[in-house]
């Protein structure tokens, strides 16, 4: 019980230190807008989108749901880290900054996830059938 108060109190001190540092910045309200904006964009856009996609996947049926969900989590996460180099405007400082073909790599990654998922579903279906035939024999 006691350690929770110590931990929570220490947390408050650290957070207050961070808050004080933020107040030292010129125009801290601009930072507050970006902090609040992160929550608004996530809770108001990203999360509902995920919930909506999850509802679509649920329609697909119980057997495939887990696999499809896993594939979408991986593909979504890869897309999240691919978006900055894909959307970044402006030139780069020199040719060694952002040297890869990110669009090609993103499509490659999505194709790899799709192929891996299909292979997994296929292997699982064959394994099930073999198992069933084994029982019949």
């Amino acid at each position, binding site marked *: 019980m006691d350690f929770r108060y110590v931990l929570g109190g220490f947390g408050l001190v650290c957070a207050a230190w961070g808050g004080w540092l933020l107040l030292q910045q010129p125009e801290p309200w601009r930072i507050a807008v970006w902090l609040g904006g992160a929550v608004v964009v996530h809770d108001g856009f990203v999360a509902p989108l995920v*919930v909506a996609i999850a509802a679509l996947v649920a329609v697909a049926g119980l057997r495939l749901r887990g696999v499809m*969900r*896993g594939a979408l989590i991986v593909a979504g996460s890869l897309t999240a*880290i*691919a978006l900055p180099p894909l959307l970044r405007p402006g030139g780069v400082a020199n040719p*060694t*900054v952002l040297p890869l073909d990110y669009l090609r790599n993103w499509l490659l990654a999505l194709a790899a996830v799709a192929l891996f998922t299909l292979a997994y579903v296929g292997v699982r279906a064959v394994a099930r059938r073999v198992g069933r035939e084994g029982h019949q024999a």
Partner: protein
Amino acid sequence: MRFTLPSGPPVTFKARLHDARTATAIGRWLGLAMAVCFATGVLSHYLQHPPGWLADSLPSRPSWGYRLTQGLHVASGIAAIPLLLGKLWAVYPRLFAWPPVRSVLHALERISVAVLVAAGLFELFTGLLNTFQWYPWPFSFVPVHYAVAWLLLGSLLLHVAVQWPKIRDHFTLRSPGTLALPEADGPDRRQLLLGVTAAVGAVTLTTVGQSVTALGPLELFGPRSPAHGAQGLPVNRTAAAARVSAASLADWRLTVAGPRPYTLTLDELRAMPQYEVTLPIACVEGWSKSARWTGVRVRDLLERAGGGSGARARVVSLEAAGAYRVMEMGRLYAQDPLTLLALRLNGEVLSLDHGYPARIIAPNRPGVLQTKWVGRLEVA
């Protein structure tokens, strides 16, 4: 007219797995990633801007130290992206808790969670964009990323303290809280956690090649690639950006200031004892790559100028402007035999973009302190 709250919550969630076991299982890994990210980030902050009392005690070994810690900083931050999104998905229905506020304490708890979510999303977003040198925000990245890190650490510790009973009750598969959940959810949850684990693996494998050269071929999304760069090494600041040209270096001399000051031409530097070291350039943005450097030991240059075994160094670049034009080097770095004023890189004379005619290479330091186009060295 009186405003009355509806009797039930406005939004309900039929989907399963929005439970404390899922939140605990993902939260532990997220907490670990954030702890690693915070510790390595603070370390990097102090290495890059050491306060005076610390400058002489910063160790120059292990030579791969900063490469490891800053690689971990960026990798743990990237790994935290699927973990944070998964964690927020698990607890999303709590956003619509009804009634929204039950008591003053409940209100304070909700505010602290809002701060935690804001700081977490903000740190991962700004950190990721910074690695791509993309700055769409109207504030300075380094001090704000650093300040919000403390806000994140603090609100995370507070969150763990508040939620501790729930965390404890759902920590293992045999914990009482876990056992009280519908048994049918078990396999479903395992699949969900497997999906999140696979996502962490996928984002790590497709980016970590920027710091682990051997995994370079797997890199799809890193902002730097070990395969790109003149003389086998990526460049951050070009000579053109620093406004250094071959013409401006025609009469180049190295000035060494100290009790017995002297100047050296490039030929005189080349005539001094040369040493070869293998050291990485490790950038604060997370990429790193090892290279072979040949040049003169900084401690030999300092000694000749009358600097004793406790001498530190101040290094001044010929670049016209820049936050790191003047670089301070603590005693342990300056006296380390691996610290060179390098003239050659991977067997070739330094290219202009890599700091020709002479640049600093020291072990266990952020890349931005590996000063290029050195014009002046001072015993400090």
